[in-house]
């Protein structure tokens, strides 16, 4: 079953009729090649990334979730470049869940160091953390890490496959491998003799690959570094059934869930009889899980399941957190203000001393707050599962298939190797699909479905009210300003631990401890030099489930840091870009970004009345990003006219996709800054749907101008980096336009937007 269905989710065109994978890293194989389990009789495989069909057709495995960020195109391009075949000549698949597709880059920067730290301790931590991803076999799409992780290993996979194919063809054609070329599905010798790749692939597969192989010099690249046509667009403009919600299987039944809206609480009493009696309803199942308690409905169609779920009468238990937003925020306000100890990932100079003798008129203080946020992916949470004969198969739009495999095996009481996870396209991810709840519920319903596959789709309301939210946070900041610069900056940031919240949902038996980078990333790790500079994260217990939301801690810490820096600039009588340039002087990559940004945004030119600009900078995911937002006062409110972005990412492997991602990240950030907030009342999330949790619409969307810099020796991430600076840049523009310093998001609580 796995084979055929895995290949239902092809990214390119055409099906592979059987195949053979070609050698990759034979010298070092920490994980077995998962394709070995998935070949028909007579086929063989050595390589997790390249399959050659009997007809010579080449399939490339791009083992990261395609959620819009273009990863299938760029990962395939890494292999195709070295293999020496055009991107439009190959088929691209996500492939199976396997530890072989581990991501080491996602954990590399998980330690208490900024990305520019080059100390022994910083490098050692990166190395050990990166190794962890390999040992654990973490196949994760997240942390803007896919290309950084795949850059070397997928180019090697392509080069090794080419080496083996040419070696095998050379025996057949009687010419040395170096003289052979790949043309279409053939390998061709200088004298014009040719052999089908399919014909020699089995011979190639049994050759011993060399221990080392040279990669192309980037100046010889034909595909990388140039904008490619995305490989997934034909499917996406024709409505092809590629998403999790589109899964269709023989005998399939349909389901939904209705979980306790008081998140993490149980059930006091319930009556499911009315729901069970409704037409089309097959079964109502109680769900008691590590991610929530409630009910699942199995029905003959989705609409019947939705109606029945609504008809369940249930009295929920009380929430394990304060019942309303104000009471929740008060907890953070208390820990931010009080003498609670936190972890200071940055503590330069002597901050206490610097404030002890500061003249009162040199000190500014400010309190900042951000709300919880929902991911609100366009495709609501869903998963399809089938259970029978001790085997579980899952089809789900997800960001971490190997973890789904482990967790759902535990739920079903079977071993992981009896679980197959098929990753479909994702109708948006933004971190929400790096969770397990949707797959756990589908697994439990499948176990009650007499062996039939069950597609479990959440309503938008269920999705909105049962998210793993971007955490709320409260900041208490002070600065001592003299001689046009901050002499001291002290930031205290109170927010819950995302890692511990995720840990409780994913591996509840494994307690997680220690301080956490996510609390203050985007604030402690910025390329500024200030004599006395301390950033303290105060991990504050709160049972509201929180998770990764595009750019994670950076999404609020950038707002805190960059808006307060704007306040410091005002106090110092400095232009915001001039002050940043002064503080960044030790970091040439950052300086280049800000100088370029000042240039393209015409920062120094005066604007007419009723228009203003704001600026912000954030180093996140290894990329250095500055943004300027220009706004205008219109009769119907503030209009965002244009955003300029400059991003230093090391190397743009596909400039078109990089630009699209930066724009996308900005729209995502601006949407939240303008008007998004998740609030609580009676222990439940108040927002239900897009009518009360909206995002930017086409009429609100600004023009963009994006410049990409490639000065850094290190590759930076791309998918999340547009988001962090967009939020403070807009808030700073609002201040410049209106004089209002808004320290609590969203901004539309204070000003109107068109």
């Amino acid at each position, binding site marked *: 079953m796995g084979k055929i269905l895995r290949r239902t989710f092809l990214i390119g065109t055409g099906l592979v009729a059987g195949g053979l994978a070609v050698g990759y890293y034979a010298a070092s194989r920490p994980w077995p090649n998962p394709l070995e389990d998935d070949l028909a009789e007579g086929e063989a495989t050595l390589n997790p990334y390249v399959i050659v069909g009997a007809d010579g057709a080449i399939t490339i495995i791009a083992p990261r979730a395609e959620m819009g960020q273009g990863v299938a195109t760029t990962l395939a391009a890494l292999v195709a470049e070295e293999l020496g075949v055009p991107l439009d000549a190959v088929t691209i698949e996500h492939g199976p869940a396997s530890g072989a597709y581990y991501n080491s880059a996602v954990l590399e920067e998980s330690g208490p160091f900024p990305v520019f730290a080059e100390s022994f301790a910083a490098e050692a931590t990166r190395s050990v953390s990166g190794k962890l991803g390999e040992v654990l076999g973490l196949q994760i799409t997240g942390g803007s890490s896919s290309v950084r992780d795949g850059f070397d290993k997928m180019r090697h996979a392509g080069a090794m496959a080419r080496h083996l194919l040419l070696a095998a063809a050379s025996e057949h054609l009687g010419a040395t491998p170096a003289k052979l070329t790949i043309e279409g599905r053939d390998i061709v010798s200088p004298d014009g003799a040719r052999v089908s790749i399919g014909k020699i692939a089995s011979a190639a597969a049994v050759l011993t690959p060399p221990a080392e192989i040279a990669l192309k010099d980037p100046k010889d690249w034909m595909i990388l570094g140039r904008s490619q046509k995305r490989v997934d667009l034909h499917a996406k403009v024709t409505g092809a059934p590629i998403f999790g919600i589109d899964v269709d299987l023989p005998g399939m039944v349909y389901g939904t869930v209705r979980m306790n809206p008081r998140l993490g609480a149980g059930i006091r009493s319930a009556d499911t009889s009315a729901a069970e009696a409704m037409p089309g309803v097959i079964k109502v199942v109680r769900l008691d899980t590590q991610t929530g308690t409630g009910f699942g409905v199995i029905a003959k169609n989705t609409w019947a399941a939705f109606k029945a779920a609504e008809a369940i009468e249930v009295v929920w238990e009380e929430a394990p957190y304060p019942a309303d937003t104000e009471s929740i925020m008060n907890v953070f306000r208390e820990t931010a203000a009080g003498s609670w100890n936190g972890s200071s990932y940055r503590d330069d100079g002597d901050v206490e001393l610097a404030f002890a003798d500061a003249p009162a008129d040199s000190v500014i203080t400010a309190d900042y707050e951000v709300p919880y946020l929902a991911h609100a992916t366009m495709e609501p949470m869903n998963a399809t599962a089938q259970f029978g004969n001790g085997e579980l198969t899952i089809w789900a739009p997800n960001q971490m298939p190997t973890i789904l495999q482990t967790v759902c095996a535990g739920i079903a009481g079977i071993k992981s190797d009896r679980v197959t996870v098929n990753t479909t396209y994702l109708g948006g991810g933004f971190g929400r699909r790096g969770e397990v709840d949707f797959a756990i519920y589908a697994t439990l319903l499948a176990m009650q479905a007499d062996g039939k596959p069950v597609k479990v789709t959440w309503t938008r309301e269920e999705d909105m009210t049962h998210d793993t939210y971007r955490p709320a946070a409260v900041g208490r900041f002070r600065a001592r300003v003299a001689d046009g610069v901050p002499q001291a900056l002290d930031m205290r940031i109170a927010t819950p631990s995302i890692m511990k919240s995720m840990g409780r949902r994913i591996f509840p038996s494994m307690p997680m401890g220690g301080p956490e980078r996510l609390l203050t990333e985007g604030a402690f790790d910025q390329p500024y030099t200030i004599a006395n500079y301390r950033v303290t994260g105060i991990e504050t217990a709160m049972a509201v489930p929180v998770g990764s939301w595009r750019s994670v801690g950076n999404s609020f810490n950038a707002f805190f840091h960059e808006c307060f820096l704007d306040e410091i600039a005002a106090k110092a009588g400095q232009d915001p870009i001039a002050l940043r340039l002064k503080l960044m002087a030790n970091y040439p990559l950052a300086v280049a970004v800000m100088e370029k940004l000042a240039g393209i945004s015409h920062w120094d030119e005066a604007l007419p009345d009723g228009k203003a600009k704001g600026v912000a900078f954030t180093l996140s995911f290894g990329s250095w990003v500055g943004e300027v937002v220009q706004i205008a006062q219109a009769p119907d409110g503030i209009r965002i006219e244009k955003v300029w972005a400059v991003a230093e990412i090391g190397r743009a492997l596909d400039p078109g996709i990089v630009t699209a991602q930066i724009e996308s990240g900005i729209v995502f950030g601006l949407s939240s800054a303008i008007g998004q907030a998740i609030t609580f009342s009676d222990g439940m999330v108040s927002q239900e749907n897009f009518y009360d949790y909206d*995002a930017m619409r086409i009429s609100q969307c600004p023009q963009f101008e994006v410049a990409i810099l490639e000065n850094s020796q290190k590759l930076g991430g791309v998918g999340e980096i547009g988001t962090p600076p967009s939020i403070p840049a807009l808030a700073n523009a609002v201040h410049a336009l209106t004089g209002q310093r808004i320290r609590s998001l969203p901004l539309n609580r204070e000003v109107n937007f068109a």
Partner: protein
Amino acid sequence: MQLTINGESRDLDVDPEMPLLWALRDIAGIKGPKYGCGVAACGACTVIIDGIATRSCVTAVGDVTGDVRTIDGLAQGEKLHPVQQAWVEEQVPQCGYCQAGQIMNAVALLEETPNPTDAEIDDAMQGNLCRCGTYPRIRAAIKRAAAQMPAQTASEG
């Protein structure tokens, strides 16, 4: 219940109160229109009925009298509709989930208004949410399609 979907007559055994979206997806097996909100707030489910862009998630299947066009029937075999072609050329989709609705809404717009202004594009496309933020490329693709679509399709709308 008799429905004409993409020019084909279909007999569907459904409760007439079922939203057209679910009748299409779960009963007729037509997966192009997507479920996003269920309350006509996002446009992912957009189909065209008698030339009008319609949110299939809030349209009871029993109330449908006209011919239903979905993204699944937009291309003529291998030949993409000019709006689809423009979407490819401008490299519009990211996650792609909202794009079936965006494209159908744009087709209805261009059939009614062959050369829309920016304000007319905003007005028509305002109900179609995209969380990936592909709006600038959607706008460019609509203009590109407008330049390429034969004028007579407008009068038919």
